[in-house]
């Protein structure tokens, strides 16, 4: 399980190739959007594009300089809001305005309200010459709409909603509560762990262990959102979550988490093996009771979060073999090291939101360390790849073929280390999104299949020994 604003990614080659395509198209939102619309219906590709697109909208600022510290609102409709670390279809990206010293009647442009009505009220205000006018000249608040008090009040009144659960919405709400895209990612890494284990592939055990892992991940994510309601309300990235919007009650969320977590862990313990069940329960505990509160207390939350991310592939391996081998730990190590360039780069551009929300992240409190750690762990990935054949997980070809992508991410991490600007952080983050699936895929293709024969051969040899 990953920390909140985490990554989405799919583990499929086709997608990663297309991801590269999207990256190479320089800032061309139009192309990206059309690609997204093309693949909108395909669930395996859906999450990656939406996510990338969303991030580009969030982080690509109109000025190319570094002066802009805040995310810029886009007027164009955003297809989805993804959450990593932490969500459904949005019509518009909203920005939470930072409060000025003299509170001006700033608008929070609403999701429910289409753009047209604000423009209409703007015209009305212009005609009537209304009382309260906010003229925004600075680039800091670029989306202040001028409307009269009455129109504003009427619009706000329309946004009140009954706290009634609409059964038709429930699947969508549950998907967002469980951070379904993040869960899909976690399940993918667990699948990679299972596939890399040196045992014959058992499809039933494979499916059962993935199901159990997925349920455990849903439970952990739901509890995380349950704990973080007021903080999520105050951050741009997370303010459209179901609990923040009041679509379900806290009790409902906890019940959902229990309904996912208990069967998930039970399934892993009883149907797979107790070790995997234990790891699943441990991961839920680490994520909800260690990582989530730690986010607000100390920067060590990132390391705990990296462990949380490393456990699913280990679970996949133990589901296959039933024991904790060095190979499992190596796969976990890949995920652990990968987390740092990934998360540090992501959090670099969210520093203001983190600071205002009271989150203690390396990027805010120890910026130099943040960049150093990202670089260190990117280089560590090269070392881990070299370790893989030594542990008989892969053949010797793996470090060779993975060297290009590992070198590339290390290069970007080095640039991020030296420059420490928004652009390099963004590049590193996007690289990490395709780097991990590529790495896992390469490991899978270079898997050491001869290990099974090595274990089998000593037996017949001993027979004719007498």
């Amino acid at each position, binding site marked *: 399980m990953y920390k909140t604003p985490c990554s989405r990614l799919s583990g499929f080659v086709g997608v990663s190739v297309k991801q590269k395509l999207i990256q190479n198209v320089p800032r061309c939102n139009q192309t990206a959007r059309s690609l997204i619309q093309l693949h909108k219906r395909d669930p395996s590709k859906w999450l990656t594009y939406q996510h990338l697109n969303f991030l580009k909208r969030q982080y690509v600022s109109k000025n190319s300089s570094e*002066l802009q510290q805040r995310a810029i609102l886009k007027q164009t409709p955003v297809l989805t809001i993804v959450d990593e670390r932490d969500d459904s279809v949005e019509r518009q990206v909203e920005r939470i305005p930072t*409060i000025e010293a003299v509170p001006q009647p700033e608008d*929070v442009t609403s999701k429910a309200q289409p753009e047209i009505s604000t423009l209409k009220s703007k015209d009305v205000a212009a005609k009537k010459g209304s009382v309260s006018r906010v003229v925004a000249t600075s680039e800091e608040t670029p989306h202040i709409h001028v409307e009269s008090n009455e129109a504003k009040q009427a619009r706000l009144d329309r946004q*009140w909603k*009954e*706290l009634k*659960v609409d059964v038709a919405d429930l699947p969508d709400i549950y998907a967002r509560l469980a951070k379904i895209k993040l869960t899909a990612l976690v399940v993918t890494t667990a699948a990679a762990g299972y596939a890399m284990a040196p045992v014959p592939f058992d499809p039933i055990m494979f499916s059962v262990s993935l199901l159990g892992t997925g349920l455990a991940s849903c439970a952990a994510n739901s509890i995380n959102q349950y704990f973080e309601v007021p903080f999520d309300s105050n951050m741009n990235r997370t303010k459209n979550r179901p609990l923040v919007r*009041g679509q379900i009650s806290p009790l409902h969320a906890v*019940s959902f988490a229990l309904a996912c977590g208990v069967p998930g862990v039970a399934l892993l313990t009883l149907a797979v093996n107790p070790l995997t069940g234990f790891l699943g329960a441990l991961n839920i505990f680490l994520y909800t009771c260690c990582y989530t509160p730690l986010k607000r207390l100390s920067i060590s939350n990132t390391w705990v979060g990296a462990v949380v991310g490393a456990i699913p592939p280990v679970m996949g391996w133990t589901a296959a073999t039933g024991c904790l081998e060095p190979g499992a730990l190596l796969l976990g190590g890949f995920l652990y090291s990968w987390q740092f360039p990934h998360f540090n780069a992501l959090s670099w551009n969210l520093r203001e939101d983190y600071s205002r929300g009271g989150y203690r992240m390396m990027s805010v409190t120890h910026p130099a360390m943040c960049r150093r750690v990202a670089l260190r762990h990117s280089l560590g990935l090269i070392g881990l790849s070299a370790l893989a054949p030594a542990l008989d997980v892969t053949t010797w070809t793996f470090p060779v073929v993975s060297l290009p992508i590992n070198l590339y991410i290390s290069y970007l991490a080095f640039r991020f280390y030296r420059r420490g600007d928004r652009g390099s952080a963004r590049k590193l983050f996007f690289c990490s999104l395709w780097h991990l699936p590529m790495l896992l895929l390469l490991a899978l293709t270079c898997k050491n299949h001869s290990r099974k024969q090595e274990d089998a051969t000593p037996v017949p040899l001993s027979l004719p020994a007498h």
Partner: protein
Amino acid sequence: MAAGAAAATWRSFFFFLPRPPLLPPRLSAACSRRSSSGAAAPKDKTPKRSTFRPAASSTHDWIGPPNPLSNLRPIVFHVPENESELEKRLRHLRQETEDWNHEFWTKQNLTFGKEKEAFIISQLQAKGLTLRDEDGRRRALNSEEMAKFYKSFLDKNRTRHANYNKEWYRRNFTITLLMARVALNSMWRTITERSSSKKNT
């Protein structure tokens, strides 16, 4: 009798729910069943809120748009007719927590904005620059300089944030436990009503 029939229809409705019927949709359903006349007393709100009044026939709580200062969504709680002690306690706790949260975040956001302004101005003055440049636009500092402010803001408020966390977790748990008790109570009441109505027929 009518309550029994209503209970039966609600039960059959929730049979199709993908989740076991232990959830608060049942609670709000139970509430709406009991408040037969359906008149919700409009609560008097604190001055900071908008003067929204739920419709007279409302049977549920209402949640509003995010408050511009605290970014939290206010809830107008529905007061059912035969409100039990437990439900009253829950409602008061939720209202109080909401007010407490709103106060904390308003203060946090306002302080953040003010201190950020002050920091920018002081930094610009130290550099000898005016607040606005030749085009009349505000100057902004680059991310490295702003990072100093973000770090100091977090460090200054460390204890305050930690205390808020503890208090928030405590309140969240208490509210959820109370909600669970209220839900169980209402389910128990439904069951006893149903069995007593069966006895009568």
